[in-house]
């Protein structure tokens, strides 16, 4: 199934479109998605360690605007947001 990852903050550097689409298996979790994103960075940014660190220190937000755990099961066509470490104000 296809899902869209909406990019925010430093993760916007991962794509010019502010969005990355992934093909994932049914009943994939956020944990699987993290692995998918790391593979994407390996392929497209030569394994940029700073980018990988962003993925590993981020949380993810479901389509209904809840921060979800690594065990969260992603549903078909769901739009997930990556939430890198924050610092506004």
């Amino acid at each position, binding site marked *: 199934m296809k899902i869209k990852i909406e990019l*925010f*903050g*430093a993760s*916007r*550097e991962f794509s010019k479109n502010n969005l990355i689409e992934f093909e994932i298996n049914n009943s994939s979790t956020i944990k699987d998605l993290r692995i998918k994103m790391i593979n994407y960075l390996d392929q497209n940014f030569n394994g940029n360690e700073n980018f990988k660190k962003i993925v590993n*220190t*981020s*949380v993810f*937000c479901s389509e209904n*605007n*809840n*921060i*979800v*755990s*690594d*065990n*969260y099961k992603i549903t078909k066509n769901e739009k997930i*947001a990556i*939430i*890198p*470490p*924050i*610092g*506004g*104000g």
Partner: protein
Amino acid sequence: MLHAKIVDIKEKKISLLDAEKFVSSFDYGASIYFTGTVRNQNNNKSVIGITYDSHNALVVKSFEEIYNESEYKLKIQNKAIFIEHAKGYLNLGETSIIIAVACKHRDEAYVLSRYIIEEIKKRSPIWKKEHYTDNQSDWLKGNPIVHEKN
């Protein structure tokens, strides 16, 4: 009473007048206005501006949670809170955040104002990209949000 909003800088600048209109009331004897502005130095680098990014829905949700907590954690019942945060590119000296609070007495107003900005720093999904005099720019590292159980 709460007003909570992310304001796209392309549409409007955040304004103390709006804050004042919202919190002014004969019910309150103490008001505090906190503003955050873009300064010219950070980590020994000369800053010329900051781009602010945000997950708008989550940010507003966090503002609402902070407001509700002031009820049961701080026990401040009667109050008006105005929070606006800018999104987009801001030049030096421009205002990135306004927090206006109005309460019956000054003690609770000071506590509330400080509580709100500290909690926003901890949990509202807002990011800064600094722009420097040497044409470089960097996303600031920030602090990871703690995972919630799901």
